[in-house]
């Protein structure tokens, strides 16, 4: 047929029951002209549409699954994925459909691994699994953590932790019988210089109870009033049986003689690995032949200090 065919009706090729085709020569075009009236013209293909290039210009393209060897989005364009979830991330790689990225919350994108959220990036960055820098450095401002285990710590400022310490003194005299091992009662917490830190104390106590296990430095000082130039003996005991002093190992003992003309001042210190609940008592002994006061006089007094040095 020469020339053009122009018809208002349908162009039916064959009886539609057999294979037919419409061929356009090189340079030919199939134009869907919507300049007329009626519904918008369209091409409907029940089978496969094979084209060398496909362009929708600035218009939309809608399809089911899209498979391509590469995809690029123009300048300013965005790829908008569905929300997805940890078990079914909206963006995934290869055959693994449970590993990828998804929107986990408002303004938050998460990485999923094996169907489980591992890293969330939002107003905060949250690692929901162990985070390792593989020997790389890590810098931050404030660090809050649970247990910290590291090779070394270098701090430009204080290293603070829960501390335990106690400072006691006597603010009154206590008579000590001759040749009798006597307990020292501690009258008050000495606030100046430290007082009691995480260490309960009842004024008037003989035995002091360790509040937390650890290595402690224990230091004491005893003042006897002036008396005969005979023995003065002072020491510390740990866990005295039945609360009776004089039955167990003595620590930082000082058994010395007095000049007989001045108050006797002496004391000692030692370190000890205590358990919580251990009791500490200070004992004194004197051999003047009569009762001798110990305690406090002028600027001199008896004192006791215990400081936890370490765990």
């Amino acid at each position, binding site marked *: 047929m020469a020339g053009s065919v122009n018809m208002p009706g349908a162009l039916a090729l064959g009886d539609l029951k057999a294979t037919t085709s419409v061929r356009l020569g090189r340079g*030919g075009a199939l134009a869907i002209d919507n300049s007329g009236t009626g519904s918008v013209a369209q091409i409907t293909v029940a089978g496969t549409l094979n084209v060398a290039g496909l362009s929708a210009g600035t218009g939309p393209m809608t399809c089911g699954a899209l498979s391509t060897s590469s995809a*690029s989005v123009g300048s300013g364009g965005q790829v908008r994925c569905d929300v997805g979830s940890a078990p079914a991330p*909206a963006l995934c790689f290869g055959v693994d459909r449970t590993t990828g990225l998804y929107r986990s919350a408002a303004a938050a994108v998460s990485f999923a691994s094996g169907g489980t959220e*591992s890293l969330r990036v939002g107003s905060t960055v949250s690692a929901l699994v162990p985070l390792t820098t593989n020997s790389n*450095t890590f*810098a931050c401002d404030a660090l809050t953590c649970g247990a910290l285990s590291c090779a070394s710590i270098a701090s430009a400022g204080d290293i603070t*932790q829960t501390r335990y310490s106690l400072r006691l003194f006597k603010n009154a005299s206590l008579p000590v019988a001759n040749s009798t091992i006597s307990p020292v009662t501690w009258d008050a917490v000495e606030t100046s210089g430290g007082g009691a830190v995480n260490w309960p104390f009842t004024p008037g106590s003989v035995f002091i109870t360790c509040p937390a296990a650890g290595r402690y430095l224990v230091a004491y000082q005893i003042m006897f009033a002036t008396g005969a130039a005979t023995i003065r003996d002072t020491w510390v005991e740990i866990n005295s049986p039945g609360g009776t002093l004089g039955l167990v190992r003595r620590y930082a003992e000082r058994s010395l003689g007095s000049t007989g003309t001045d108050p006797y001042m002496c004391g000692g210190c*030692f370190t000890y690995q205590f358990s919580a609940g251990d009791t500490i008592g200070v004992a004194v002994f004197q051999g003047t032949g009569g009762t001798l006061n110990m305690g406090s006089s002028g600027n001199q007094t008896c004192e006791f200090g215990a400081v936890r040095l370490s765990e």
Partner: protein
Amino acid sequence: MAGSVNMPGVLAIGDLPTTTSVRLGRGGALVVDNTGTGAAGQVSIAGALSAASLDFGSSPVTCSTLSAGSVAIGSGGVVDCDVGSASAPALYFGPAPSTGLYRAAAVTGVASGGVELLRAGSTVSVFAPLDATGSAFSCGAMTCGALSCASLASAGAVTQPRYSLRVTKNGNQTVTSGAVTALIWDVAEVVGGGATNWPFTPGSTLLTCPKDGKYLFALDVAIFFNDLMGVAWVEINPPGGVPGSSRRYGEASLISSSGGSNWVSGGSFTYQLSANDTILAAVFQTSGSVRNVGISGHAQTAFSITRLSE
């Protein structure tokens, strides 16, 4: 032409070497109907297909390269990228094909400049310095190498390798009058601490510092009996391991006037030791007779050294 054209064969428009066209008016449609027999009908276009919009319904689309102004994936849809690699991430941005995301060993990796930076899997691994400067960092248990900080506050214990030694005598040692005598330490006193990271050989006089640091020393000496002038002290690195010719620390000295009782005394001090420094405790008495130093009843000769800090 009025009506329809119905033909059993091919509709060839023009002579093919020339430009021809088929136009369908508004409301018109080109339908390839596959309800018949034979191979499925299709439309093949050697050139480009241009349209105001394209709708493939739920049918798949396959192409070599896709270029679009934007891409939106419908509800429940998935963007399934290739695996990719650090050097060629499957998903990248702009003109940097070596910076983006890919699948690394069954987890998602982030690459920059062709190098893996972050891997989010059963652990989140960072392969470059991690910088949260200006932000707080919160975590559970943390393990790291050297930690350097402005200050450190711990709600619990701060533990580190500790170094301490508590030694004592479990018998008496004779001390000749007028002779400086090194104290022999018989055992580590387990009760109250013992030896912590401090090797000790029973029967030693010299104790060797295992680690640099500031140490607290406390010495108690029990010597028997009265009527003597006694002295006890500590020396650091005594020449030849022999006491009496170097600086004395924590020295306690007095003339006993206790009237028949033992003399027990001692001293304490702090000292910045170096590893392998040697420490020795010595006694001296001028009673004119041999005296014993050691243990009597609850009075005991003991020596403790505790590392306080670096």
